[in-house]
């Protein structure tokens, strides 16, 4: 299982070099920290998907001593692992560039990322082959319209975070966390059952 997760890093060796300038770009653009956390988390797991579609990876993985359950589990666990790493690196970047961020930003970023994963991962296996292009294009568009959008969003996010901060009780946080965890778990289950029915 660990080997499957590590695999994503090995395949993307070269792309990983782009990872740091990419994050720095977002930091320099003064994007909202929560957004940077989310975007940074997305890169590795989703790029791994793009790779897997190119080569006949599913044939390879399914011929190795792995079960289909494990292959999907490695995706979902891997997403969390790479999110942790990305958030760590991003925090470091933010510190280096002396941009302030809060734990709330971090929580919102990772929450958004996990929700994003929960929605998109099943789609990858439903529309195999096309979905990467769709996601990559929307991602580029997102990046293009980001700067004007970000300043707008930044204000709003601050308002939202302020709002939540003012309203919040630990119960509210827990509630949101529980919803995301549930979403993630359901998504995991759905993807596993889709994948188990696949023919290669």
């Amino acid at each position: 299982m660990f080997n499957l997760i590590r695999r994503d890093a090995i395949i993307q060796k070269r792309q990983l070099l782009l990872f740091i300038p990419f994050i720095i770009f977002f930091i320099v653009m003064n994007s909202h920290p929560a957004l940077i956390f989310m975007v940074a988390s997305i890169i590795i797991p989703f790029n791994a998907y793009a790779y897997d579609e190119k080569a006949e990876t599913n044939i390879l993985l399914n011929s190795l001593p792995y079960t289909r359950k494990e292959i999907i589990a490695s995706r979902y666990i891997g997403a969390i692992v790479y999110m942790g790493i990305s958030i760590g690196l991003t925090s470091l970047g933010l510190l280096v560039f002396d941009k302030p961020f809060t734990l709330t930003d971090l929580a919102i970023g990772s929450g958004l990322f996990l929700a994003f994963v929960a929605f998109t991962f099943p789609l990858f296996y439903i529309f195999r082959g096309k979905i990467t292009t769709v996601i990559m294009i929307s991602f580029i568009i997102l990046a293009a319209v980001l700067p004007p959008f970000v300043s707008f969003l930044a204000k709003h996010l601050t308002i939202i975070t302020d709002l939540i901060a003012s309203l919040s009780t630990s119960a509210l946080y827990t509630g949101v966390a529980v919803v995301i965890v549930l979403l993630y778990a359901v998504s995991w289950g759905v993807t596993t059952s889709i994948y188990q029915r696949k023919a290669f």
Partner: protein
Amino acid sequence: MENVVELKGVAKNFKGFSVNNMNLQVKQGFVTGFIGANGAGKSTTIKMIMNLLKPDVGEVKIFGLDYATHEKAIKERIGFVYDGNVFFEGLNLKDIKRIVGPAYKKWDDALFYQYVEQFKLPLNKAIKTFSKGMQMKASLAVALSHHAELIIMDEPTAGLDPIFRRELLDLLQELMLDGSRTIFFSTHITTDLDRIADYIAFIQNGELVFTQSIHEVAETYALVKGGMDLLDRDTEKAFVHVHPAPTGFEALTDNIKAVNTIFGDSVVIERASLEEIMYYMKGRKSYV
């Protein structure tokens, strides 16, 4: 356990193509060649053996085990080589080893490097720069480095030059020195099999025509040549298919005894090659 692979009543339907009622056995310690025309169902069958495809009905047992309960244990003992490259093209062999190796409990680094050296493969060049033959060697090196008991290959010799094909056959024979090892490989180049195959499984239009030892094949099928005047509706029954020509007929029989009794010395009876068997079977009249 005599049969390493056992398919019982396996069927799989696709749009416009199906594999029907497949009963296939692959015997331990031998080389079984899987022959059939392109599109006959060889790859589909191999995919079902590898659990890449699940049959609609029927039972697939590998090493006597079921995929539903022993998937990992089964795949641990299989080495596979597919027609195309299944590795990430941009990676070099070292990285591929880093990905594939840890998947197996019995992975043997020393053995892997020994094959890499034997096949003269570069460790630090991307797979996409490899020639077809080198890609095949790379797959083979990976497939052989975890002491697999069953080696499954889908068209391993397709697109390879005769010299490398020969080297591959030598290597396979060396592997067979270990009596517990079994090789199952599909091919449409039947001459590969003349040398090393112990058993032949022949598939046609999604149906297994026979699985026989090469001796049974040689004793069952023969090529018969003779004058056209010998043929009539009765005598033709001894043949699977007849190819008539003004200079005389050539036919495939699956009943050498009958041909001997009917024609005696008036015809020439020769051993039929696998290619000839495949060719004449294709032209055969429907099962009457």
